[in-house]
């Protein structure tokens, strides 16, 4: 009986074919759900035709390793964005945690394993600073993390004084370099683990449910007695922790840190989340989409190298591709949540 009632949304949605409701969701919902995976498939087929040496185990593994840092960051960013925020400081946080680890093992006698956890701790600390600015000082998320992006990045430059720290032990490089059974990179295992934990948190925990509620309708969340500020705080702390994980992986992979490490990661991460179908204005998370988005961007970066396109030109291409993908989504009538 309830289904024959005319839906209020139908009147607004009838305008475009992509807004037709199929399986209780607008068509655009399904398209954005499958979007990154279709992109991966199409792009993969394209690359196979372009270069017959592209589809190899070694290259696939390289793509996965390269993407794993962004997968970890994108899971955290999915929570921040779904909760109605944004974190522009992830790149700087990733650099800062990598530097913390490098500095501790180079200049102190601290056990290396402890130094890794210290790097995670610094990530949480930096995330807490973001959270405090947003919840206590009531700064807009965008402005607060823009400020900390510059500040954290600046602190890294001051500490490292233009040097590069390099050559680290296998313990320090464990997350970035170790391979299980000599085959499966630890970084990929960590990324998969973070994705599974992120998915369970998002769909099966209060943390995830309240994140969606806060981003979906903040007033309703407050009315339901959800401590909105506390959860916003958690989002930034969680993001900071994952930036710490990403920083440790990155250090292990590069075997070096310099003052500009992590630069551009924030845009790359946000792009992965948006390509993955998470609504930029909050309330609609797509954890697996973010993983797919990071993978697709990783494939593109790899492909540009493969096709012999200069490193700097890659930036231009990445930018254009991101704009195109976002444009396609908006043309699809990418709307999964009501206005306001």
């Amino acid at each position, binding site marked *: 009986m309830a289904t024959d009632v005319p839906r209020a949304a139908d009147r607004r949605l009838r305008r475009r074919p992509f807004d037709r409701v199929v399986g209780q969701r607008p068509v655009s919902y399904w398209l954005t759900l499958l979007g990154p995976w279709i992109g991966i498939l199409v792009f993969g087929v394209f690359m196979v035709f372009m270069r017959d040496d592209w589809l190899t185990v070694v290259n696939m593994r390289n793509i996965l390793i390269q993407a794993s840092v962004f997968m970890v960051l994108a899971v955290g960013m999915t929570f921040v964005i779904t909760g109605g925020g944004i974190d522009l400081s992830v790149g700087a946080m990733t650099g800062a945690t990598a530097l913390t680890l490098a500095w501790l093992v180079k200049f102190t006698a601290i056990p290396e394993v402890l130094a890794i956890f210290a790097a995670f701790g610094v990530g949480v600390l930096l995330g807490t600073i973001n959270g405090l600015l947003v919840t206590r000082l009531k700064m807009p998320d965008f402005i607060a993390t823009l400020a900390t992006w510059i500040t954290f990045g600046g602190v890294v430059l001051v500490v490292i004084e233009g040097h590069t720290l390099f050559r680290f032990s296998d313990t320090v490089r464990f997350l970035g370099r170790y391979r299980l059974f000599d085959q499966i990179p630890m970084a990929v295992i960590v990324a998969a683990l973070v994705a599974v934990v992120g998915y369970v948190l998002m769909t099966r925990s209060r943390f995830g449910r309240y994140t969606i509620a806060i981003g*979906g309708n903040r007033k309703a969340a407050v009315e339901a007695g959800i401590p909105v500020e506390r959860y916003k705080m958690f989002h930034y702390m969680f993001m900071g922790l994952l930036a710490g994980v990403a920083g440790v992986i990155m250090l292990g992979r590069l075997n070096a840190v310099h003052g500009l490490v992590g630069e551009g990661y924030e845009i790359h991460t946000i792009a992965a989340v948006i390509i993955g179908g998470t609504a930029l204005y909050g309330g609609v998370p797509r954890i697996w989409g973010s993983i797919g988005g990071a993978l697709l961007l990783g494939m593109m970066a790899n492909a540009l190298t493969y096709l012999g396109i200069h490193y700097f030109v890659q930036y231009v291409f990445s930018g254009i591709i991101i704009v195109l993908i976002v444009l396609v989504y908006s043309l699809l009538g990418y709307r999964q949540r009501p206005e306001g």
Partner: protein
Amino acid sequence: MASPPVLLELSGITKRFGGVRALDDVDFAIEPGEVVALVGENGAGKSTLIKVITGIYPPDGGTIRYRGEPVEIRSRRDSQQLGIEVLYQELSLVGVMNAYQNVFLGKELTKRYLGFIELLDNERMRIEAERILLEQLGMDFKGRWEPIFLMSGGQQQAIALARAIYAEASLVILDEPMASLGVEEVERTIAIIQRLRGAGVAVIVISHNLEHVFAVADRLVVVRRGRKVGDVPKDQITPEEAIALMVGRLQEKLVTREGPVPASSREEAHRGDGRPESR
């Protein structure tokens, strides 16, 4: 009855905003299972009165009793603990969530895994929400897992009411519940309000539409310029009288269960030092 007959009783409530008296010495009472319509023109003080009851605007003067006990309602949390639930015009629901997620928002059911991992029990919440919606509200939501912003106004209202029922509300306040509904859905909402009354829940309905008010309410309370000018059982007032009270063509009409209160005696009570006795 074992419980005291009056659920919520406000006496001499005053609320000022700067120099403006939004509420001036207002008395208000409601019993369990009673449906009271709160009517008045825009700015007459309806929403201020509701916000006093829900703790959003603590009053500047006057007393509040709940089940006979004096209480202070200074925040939304206070009123929630008393079992007061409000459904605002723009419903307090999360549009991107589905029905059961909204019904249980903030009061989720959980299940333990391995003794220490506490996860949401989505399945049990879905079944329980569907049961409340079907048994208490007569709405079939089986297999509806889409976000509720794709649903009709009436369906959203049912979800909001299911929230209130699950919270075991003793008083439900509906702010313009029928403002954006179709004819069929208005009838359904009226039926739902009658079900709530049958379950012993007190209901305050704020509405501009006197037709709806007369269809659903047991008693009308009319406010004008921050004063209560009408408090009459439905069968002792006509819609014309109600409008006259709202716009000020009729000065005052107060009828208690014992009988009408003469306007002159109330005036004297106001002039004296003591506050007028509540009903």
